[in-house]
């Protein structure tokens, strides 16, 4: 059966023809001066074709493995085959004899500094641990790199790896929360004998115990989510080479955070940071897996430096599945107190995140539990809140922030709470959400966070009305099929500025971003950003922002990213930060360039500076005599080629720079998802029949791009809800080391998604945008899980674990749970 067999599906909202709402009045602002003035131009808001497309469609993209340098060698890693062991022998003599092998290095050979990520927290809250570039003395997960093999071609590299001799003295492996926290458990790191890397009780506000004592209803839900791989389709990779003329290591790498790679790499190699240049070519996705520094990047750079030859490493899929950075293995016990009307009165949460063998740089192993602890109250008015968040270490591949970082999990936990409360109280689950959702803004929550205006209730109402109007409730009530309807209402703090990150007590605090814009003598501009496009369409959307600010055709704007020589510093792309922070920086730089153009033009037109303005068509016009106009080319010609004509106080060339950092608590995008599923009583198979997303990411720069981010995010959320899990056996051996066992959904598993936009401009980003990169991923697991539970409502079973396996559904239907 297809969705077209079912009632009342309306035509898709045409993404090309959005009618954005008028900017709304804001009740206030969380912090900082208002930046967004509500101005709209010709380009922002239009689904213009992507600047990236022609090269990517014709095979002319330049991805990391497309780079070939003269004399280039190839590298690969000898990796651990046991999860937890002392290394008793590592013999590379035979490797070095293999035909084509040029060099082989172990940890002692390279003598590199460890990767250490630290939080500014006391010892009882956080334990720093070191991640060596190559394992020393001990291995902590299957796939951990032990040695680097360099050869003339990648096939010889494999031969060399095969010839390496490694012996182990195996230790018991820590493979679960239970084995990690058991008394007398083997310690993954000597520094953390209890296998706890972070233990923080971030909130314990007054009244929690009283609220539970007085509660009309207490709900107690334990939710779990499986370990997942962000799984960019392009695996990680690096090409490093030494440039004697520049006195620099050129590290071309596949990273969302080139500047942080440069910083860590220089420290590990013990060299000045100016002697490292990191550039990033086209990147085949990242989703967070590439927003941390990989030990392989550093090892390969060190080999290139030693050999004075270019060295390339391309991760293979088995490595990516077993040794790539993972995420999402979390367990929440959530207790919630409700009054008789279904209003939540207290929340008491214990969250444990299995961060695997090492702490990632720069975010640390605290990233998941700290995110969960800070944000857990979600979109609801929670009067009293207690939370304990722990990061445990285990003999599994380490973790990195994956798209959404803990939000898919804590949203799933609290959305399950809402559903349970509704069921216990005999109320509609959407109604319970309505009674609890934040409706007045700005709202300062029990977590001390101020939420800027959004459309929490409006999005929920619209999602529900859509499903209702299409007749799905009637279809479900008809009772001849196992249909279920599920919802999820959530917000996401997108623009984390340095102030918000500093509250996490990071010692490396992301936040700001920089932009420089230059106009050439032909009136075209190149603009830089410290963010890092890898599918998000920055080359298009940032150009739209610049084009409007300058009144310049969008085709005359080119974005440059991913080069530590061009951009003084940047924090890359993660956390839906790019358009909010990077996009604000390019907007401000563009405005400054516009002011400069006007100043020069006024001088050349021999009029007052306040008597000219950008004309919106590539020039500056004299306001009291619009016939007098200077195109940008003429102004640029003077600025570069006839600088003697410039005003005395204006420097030659046309450049402007700007930085931007989101003030205060940042900004929140929000959305509601509604899902209809059908479960097959014969097989337990779950099919998604309808998926509705109502989202609000502030000003939509390019509707088609935002839709794409929503749909792609939802697909990854569905993957986590129904299919993907990185599994290990009891010895820590990965049991999903290929795509045969790690089930990535295809076109037949992922449904069409209809998207509706609400638009509450952010008052304190320069472009009104709030960010859209992660939202889809956040909402999908909860919405799908709730829908499956609704389909099973007659069984009395409550499923609270993802991924949901058909065998579990079948067992529920057959009364075996």
């Amino acid at each position: 059966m297809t969705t077209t067999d079912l009632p009342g599906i309306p035509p898709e909202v045409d993404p090309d023809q959005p009618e954005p709402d008028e900017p709304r009045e804001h009740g206030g602002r969380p912090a900082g001066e208002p930046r967004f003035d509500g101005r709209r131009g010709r380009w922002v808001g239009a689904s213009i074709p992507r600047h990236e497309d022609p090269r990517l469609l014709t095979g002319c993209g330049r991805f990391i493995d497309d780079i070939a340098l003269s004399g280039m060698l190839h590298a690969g890693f000898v990796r651990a085959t046991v999860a937890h062991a002392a290394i008793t022998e590592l013999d590379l003599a035979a490797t070095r004899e293999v035909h084509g092998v040029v060099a082989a290095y172990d940890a002692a050979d390279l003598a590199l500094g460890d990767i250490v990520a630290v939080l500014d927290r006391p010892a009882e809250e956080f334990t720093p641990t070191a991640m060596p570039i190559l394992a020393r003395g001990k291995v902590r997960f299957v796939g951990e790199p032990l040695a680097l093999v360099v050869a003339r071609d990648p096939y010889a590299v494999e031969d060399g790896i095969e010839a390496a001799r490694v012996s182990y003295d195996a230790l018991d492996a820590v493979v679960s929360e239970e084995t990690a926290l058991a008394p007398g458990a083997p310690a993954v790191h000597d520094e953390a004998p209890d296998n706890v890397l972070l233990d923080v009780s971030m909130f314990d506000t007054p009244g929690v115990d009283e609220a539970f004592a007085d509660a009309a209803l207490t709900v107690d839900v334990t939710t779990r989510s499986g370990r997942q791989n962000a799984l960019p389709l392009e695996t990680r990779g690096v090409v490093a080479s030494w440039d004697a003329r520049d006195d620099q290591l050129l590290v071309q790498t596949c990273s969302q955070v080139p500047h942080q790679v440069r910083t860590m790499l220089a420290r590990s190699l013990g060299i000045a940071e100016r002697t490292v240049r990191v550039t990033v070519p086209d990147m085949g996705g990242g989703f967070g897996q590439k927003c941390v520094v990989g030990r392989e990047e550093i090892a390969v750079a060190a080999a290139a430096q030693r050999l004075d030859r270019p060295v390339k490493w391309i991760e293979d899929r088995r490595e990516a599945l077993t040794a790539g950075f993972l995420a999402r293995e979390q367990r929440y016990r959530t207790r919630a107190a409700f009054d008789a009307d279904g209003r939540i009165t207290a929340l008491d949460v214990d969250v444990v995140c299995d961060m695997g063998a090492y702490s990632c740089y720069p975010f640390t192993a605290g990233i998941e539990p700290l995110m969960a602890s800070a944000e857990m109250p979600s979109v609801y008015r929670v009067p009293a809140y207690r939370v304990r968040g722990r990061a445990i270490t285990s003999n599994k591949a380490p973790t990195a922030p994956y798209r959404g970082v803990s939000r898919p999990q804590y949203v799933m936990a609290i959305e399950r709470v809402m559903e349970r409360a509704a069921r216990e109280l005999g109320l509609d689950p959407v109604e319970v959400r309505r009674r609890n959702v934040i409706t007045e803004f700005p709202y300062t929550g029990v977590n001390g966070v101020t939420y800027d205006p959004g459309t929490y209730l409006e999005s929920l109402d619209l999602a529900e009305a859509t499903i209702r109007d299409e007749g799905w409730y009637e279809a479900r009530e008809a009772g001849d099929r196992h249909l279920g309807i599920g919802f999820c209402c959530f917000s996401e703090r997108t623009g984390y500025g340095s102030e918000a990150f500093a509250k996490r007590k990071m010692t490396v605090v992301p936040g700001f971003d920089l932009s420089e814009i230059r106009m050439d003598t032909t009136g075209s501009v190149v603009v830089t950003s410290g963010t890092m496009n890898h599918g998000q369409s920055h080359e298009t959307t940032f150009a739209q922002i610049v084009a409007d600010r300058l009144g310049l055709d969008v085709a005359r704007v080119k974005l440059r990213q991913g080069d530590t020589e061009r951009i003084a510093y940047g924090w890359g792309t993660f956390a839906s930060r790019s358009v909010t922070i990077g996009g604000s920086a390019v907007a401000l730089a563009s405005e400054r360039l516009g002011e400069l153009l006007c100043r020069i033009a006024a001088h050349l037109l021999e009029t007052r500076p306040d008597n000219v303005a950008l004309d919106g068509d590539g020039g500056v016009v004299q306001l009291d005599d619009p016939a007098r106009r200077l195109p940008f080319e003429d102004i640029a010609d003077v600025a570069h080629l006839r600088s003697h004509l410039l005003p005395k106080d204006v420097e030659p060339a046309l450049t402007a720079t700007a930085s931007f950092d989101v003030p205060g608590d940042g900004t929140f995008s929000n959305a509601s998802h509604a899902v209809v599923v059908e479960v097959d009583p014969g097989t337990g198979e779950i099919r998604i029949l309808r998926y509705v997303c109502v989202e609000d990411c502030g000003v939509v720069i390019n509707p088609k791009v935002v839709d794409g981010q929503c749909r792609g995010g939802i697909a990854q959320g569905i993957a986590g809800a129904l299919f993907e899990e990185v599994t290990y056996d009891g010895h820590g051996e990965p049991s999903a080391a290929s795509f045969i066992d790690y089930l990535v959904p295809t076109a037949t598993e992922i449904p069409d998604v209809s998207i509706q936009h609400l638009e509450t401009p952010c008052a304190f980003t320069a472009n009104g945008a709030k960010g859209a990169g992660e939202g889809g991923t956040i909402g999908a697991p909860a919405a799908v899980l709730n829908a499956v539970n609704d389909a099973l409502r007659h069984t009395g079973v409550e499923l609270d674990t993802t991924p949901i396996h058909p065998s579990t559904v079948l067992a529920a239907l057959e009364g075996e749970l």
Partner: protein
Amino acid sequence: MRDPHLLALTVNDSEYEVVVEPRRTLADVLRHDLLLTGTHVGCEHGVCGACTVLLDEAPVRACLVFAVQAEGSSVRTVESLADHGELSDLQQAFSDHHGLQCGFCTPGFLMLAEGVLAEQPDASREEIREGLSANLCRCTGYQTIVDAVHATACARRESAS
């Protein structure tokens, strides 16, 4: 090089001769010997389909084909689709429908789609979806890829009739 073989094959209507080890994959020959880097490699075990090319007009995984197996065959890669920089109808449809984000899977999907449309010129949207389920995309959620291929199929049918 161990056990070198002289291999002749036709790629995008050009004839090539390369010396390869028997274990060298077609994907590696295309990418690293012929420098046709538009064909991407995503899993090296024949599941993701990023390396899909047409071998004698049928879609194959170039990572699962040894180059020596393509001896005497004709290979078509993504580089063959555009005409002197002008996008083909299928490529243009991918852009129009936002059927690509990072672009890494895109060459494989384009070649797969050409294979599907050649085999099933009358394919419905659901049949196209079924055919495209052979490849993985991590960015788009597939909907817009299906839209792009379906639009191309409809346009080609219209122009044929």
